């Protein structure tokens, strides 16, 4: 549906033309990386460390309660303050990173995986397969996510895996639909026709043209989806379906702090801040990679 622009949008070149270099930026290319992207990289790195080796970053035992130091506001000793039972919130946020990222990334990975499989097949296959798959998607989509989550938790209990699967399954059909829609649009574009006129096998056209172009809005969805699924998981916690306490999974922290908004803002703000910071960083990086892939980077 989009027509490429004309010379109006000719920008000074970056040195990222080469296939490989686009993924492994050269020193020159790195110089063109904006400071925000570096900052985002640092944030993501921090969270990755927190996920893999939380103890490296913790200042306290995240599960250690202190009944005489509850609900303390942020200080040098407790960066993020303490919670209702005197646990160090900062250490808890760090501790919860692994589980939260597992939920966020796992659910997104799962749903994108399914969505790709179904969406791509539906978007490419013949009318009949498309119709069948579309119906299948419709059926999945017609279930409110919540119901899927309720069911899964009912059957398998509230574990990280359950959350990943239920949230992932819940989101998959939406992504699939989007992919399919994009496929239909891109499939009709002039360059796909041109590639067809060159006699390329369909698979190759899909790989080279349809897929990358159709995936464009998806990058946004994926990067944002990571944050959103964590939040979804917290909504489940809100409904009493979250992972078991005392897990400091971010969503559970958010939910636990909710009743205290008026008296202990940090309980709500700090985990929220973690989610936002992570989602924002991932988005910044994702956007930058995308721009880079499309040669839209300005030095």
């Amino acid at each position, binding site marked *: 549906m989009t027509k490429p622009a004309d010379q109006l949008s000719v920008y000074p070149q970056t040195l990222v033309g080469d296939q490989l270099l686009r993924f492994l930026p050269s020193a020159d290319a790195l110089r063109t990386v904006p400071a925000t992207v570096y900052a985002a990289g640092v944030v993501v790195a921090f969270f990755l460390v927190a996920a893999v080796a939380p103890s490296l970053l913790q200042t306290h035992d995240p599960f250690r309660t202190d009944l005489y130091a509850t609900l303390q506001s942020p200080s040098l000793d407790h960066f993020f303050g303490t919670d209702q*039972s005197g646990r160090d919130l900062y250490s808890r946020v760090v501790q919860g990173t692994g589980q939260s990222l597992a939920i966020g990334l796992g659910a997104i990975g799962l749903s994108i995986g399914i969505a790709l499989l179904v969406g791509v097949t539906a978007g490419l296959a013949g009318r009949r397969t498309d119709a069948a798959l579309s119906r299948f998607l419709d059926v999945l989509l017609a279930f409110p996510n919540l119901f899927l989550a309720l069911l899964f938790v009912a059957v398998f209990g*509230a574990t990280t895996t359950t959350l990943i699967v239920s949230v992932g399954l819940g989101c998959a059909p939406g992504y699939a639909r989007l992919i399919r829609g994009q496929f239909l649009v891109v499939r009709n574009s002039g360059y796909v026709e041109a590639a067809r006129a060159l006699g390329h096998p369909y698979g190759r056209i899909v790989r080279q043209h349809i897929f990358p172009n159709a995936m464009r809005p998806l990058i946004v969805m994926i990067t944002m989806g990571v944050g959103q699924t964590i939040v979804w998981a917290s909504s489940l916690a809100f409904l*009493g379906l979250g992972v078991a*306490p005392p897990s400091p999974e971010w969503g559970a922290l958010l939910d*636990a702090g909710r*009743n205290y908004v008026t008296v202990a803002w940090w309980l709500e703000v700090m985990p929220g801040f973690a989610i936002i910071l992570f989602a924002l960083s991932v988005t910044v990086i994702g956007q930058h990679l995308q721009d880079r892939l499309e040669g839209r980077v300005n030095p």
Partner: protein
Amino acid sequence: AAGEPRQGGIIRYGHYQEPPCLYTGWVQAGYIQRQYADNLVARDNDGNIVPWLATSWTVSNDNLTYTFRIKPDVKFTDGTVLDANAILYNFNRWLSDDPAKANRNAKLYVAEYIRQISAPDPLTLKIELSKPYQPLLTVLATYFFGILSPTALEKGQEAICEKPIGSGPFYVDEWKRGQYVVLKRNPDYNSAPATAKHQGPAHVDGIVWKFLKDNTLRYGSLQSGESDAIYDVPAVYWAEAQKNYTIIQDITGGTPTRLQLNTARPPFDDVRVRQAFAHVSDRRKAVEVATHGSIPYNGNGSLSQSSPEHVGALHDSYPYDPAAANRLLDEAGWSARDRNGVRQKDGKPLTVRLLYAGGSLLSADATLVLQILQDQARDVGFEVVLKPIPQADWFAGKGRTVDDYEAQPAYWVASSAEILKISWRPDEGGVINANNASRFQPPELWKLIETADRTFDDAERLKLYQDAQRLIVNNAAVVGLFPLTFTIAAQPKLRDVWISSPVSEPVFHDAWFEE
């Protein structure tokens, strides 16, 4: 300053949960039921049974026959006459085998004792028992023995769910599902219990019984003046609410929220390990921190402190004492520790799976107490795993077989020691008593309880009940946390709302608005 009660006004009351049906055994429906229905007898806060629909009664010498005189000229709000036959109709319905009619709670308490019920004349009701049961009258005072109009009951479950009809101070006028129930004043009300502050119709014109599940919203609605009274002040607002509003709190009888330790399985089959577990945590402080002081500590896990039979000294049976816990565990052979400090015996870790119903059955404050306990237990080498179970599964019986857990927190509302029978009845003839999650059933315990239930000498009965409590607590079959409380915060201008025994139902019959 309490002046003469004023007439008029509508009470906007913000309650918590909405029942699926206004007439079920569930306590959430019971709170409403207290407004529209009357019971045969009432129980005052000291545990005495006083008249209600029954103006007087006699008990035969063998304690097997109860004869009630029914108040004359009482009518249900649909005009049906409330007489002994109507009450008999209710009894028959409760005890019937038809699941659509039966009252499960009623059956649980009294079915085994009832031999026959009859109405020799319209104002006399006779209950004959097969064996003596002292708590009978107390039980009859609970909400699920509220009397409904037979005419309305005849219409079937659907109608009675939506618009139950009793003889109470209010009648159900409208139920907007998901929002509120409108209760209107019964102008002909003449059957208030002896516990009431006044006889005759209610002072106010009605109640809007709203369902405000979210804490912030519910308290906010009181703050903004959109509610005249609300249920349960969120713990965080406890201090503030006490300053600004009238707080009415009642500690509910029955059992407190307590941990039932599974005595049928290692490690808690060893009394020393159970006792160690009881010593392991500063429960008193934990309760205080989690509830911001809005709920007292109830260390005696067998009975709520509001039950007259309760033994207060048992609260301090197991003070916070990690050293004692360590010693007991060492004695019990759990002396080895793994890398994480978890004790071990024969290669098995000292793991306690704490199983509980997630969602609404256990409050957030309670789960916080559990987390504190979990953390403190870690120090002496217990690995406590919290395992919430979805409510539906809980009701469906999932996860409650003996091998599924080491401990289960739960509570049961009742008025007093009659609850002991429900909690500690041993398994009989293959029927498992699921309420006895401790699986603690020494014959002497049951004997104490059964004898007490049959003993009509107050002093003797009290002693038996207390012995039973000591036996339970000394064996650390349960570890007490805190009792269930029923709290109402009301605008200062709303006067004379009170909470009735036995299971803390709010009463708006006497309430009125100050100028």
